[in-house]
């Protein structure tokens, strides 16, 4: 098995050009439509900070946990969290559960969608000229901040338990 690779982001390199959104929607839907993109740039214009957000392929994936049909599984090759659309019934519990807003609902087609790492060749990475989005092994240091953030976010939401 190959080493697990993840989509990693470096907010300091992102210029907020949203090229990743465009190529993502073109790759998967054949249209240039950011609302169908599986990666989306979150912007804080007043401080000039841009952060591309996409599926984290969580190890303890909430979407996978909550699916009542077991329609979400981990791809054996890429280790990506993957939807089996033949089993999906469209209840959208995964959409509600994802802490990153990375599982989304395609109103037009009536189905959920998320990053599938373009079967190992992420187009957002290919077209990100500043390398703010990259596809690399998990051991790489630059994933540290992202994973830390993900963990602290998960912790924070757990504190809200009523």
């Amino acid at each position: 098995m190959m080493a697990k690779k993840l989509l990693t982001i470096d907010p300091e390199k992102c210029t907020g050009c949203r090229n990743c959104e465009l190529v993502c929607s073109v790759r998967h839907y054949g249209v240039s439509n950011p609302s169908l993109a599986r990666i989306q740039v979150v912007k804080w214009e007043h401080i000039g900070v841009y952060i591309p957000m996409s599926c984290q392929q969580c190890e303890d994936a909430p979407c996978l946990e909550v699916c009542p049909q077991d329609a979400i599984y981990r791809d054996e090759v890429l280790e990506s969290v993957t939807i089996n659309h033949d089993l999906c019934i469209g209840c959208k519990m995964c959409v509600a559960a994802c802490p990153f807003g990375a599982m989304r609902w395609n109103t037009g087609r009536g189905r959920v969608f998320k990053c599938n790492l373009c079967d190992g060749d992420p187009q957002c990475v290919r077209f990100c000229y500043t390398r703010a989005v990259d596809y690399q092994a998990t051991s790489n240091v630059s994933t540290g901040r992202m994973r830390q953030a993900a963990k602290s976010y998960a912790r924070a939401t757990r504190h809200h338990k009523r």
Partner: protein
Amino acid sequence: MSYFRVNDNCNGCLACVENCPASALGFDDQGGRRTLKHNMTKCARCGQCWRVCPQRAIEFQHLLVGEWDDVIALDLIHCRLCGEVLYSPAFQQKMESKLNSASETLCPKHRQYAAAAKMLPSKPGEENKT
């Protein structure tokens, strides 16, 4: 409430029952009373009962108009930032029991913002604003 309705002109002759090709009409004579019965799952809405009824007692029109019945009404939980409809309390309960933790009542977009805000190099004042 029955979909098949007759008005006060009905005299219980049962011509409709005899002539229904789908056997969707029946009757019950009990306790000195005759009850006309209709089964919507068998009814083909062909209108034969309406055609044969000598009393013009059968109200058929509403069977053809088609109305929406309220089946169930549930409370809704909204995104606490933008008010987008998220889910019902029962849906949330089911999800949280599967996750074994509480979830923030945020829409996907504001979850994305909240998660991204954790990655900010330094904390800005309005981290969850869009």
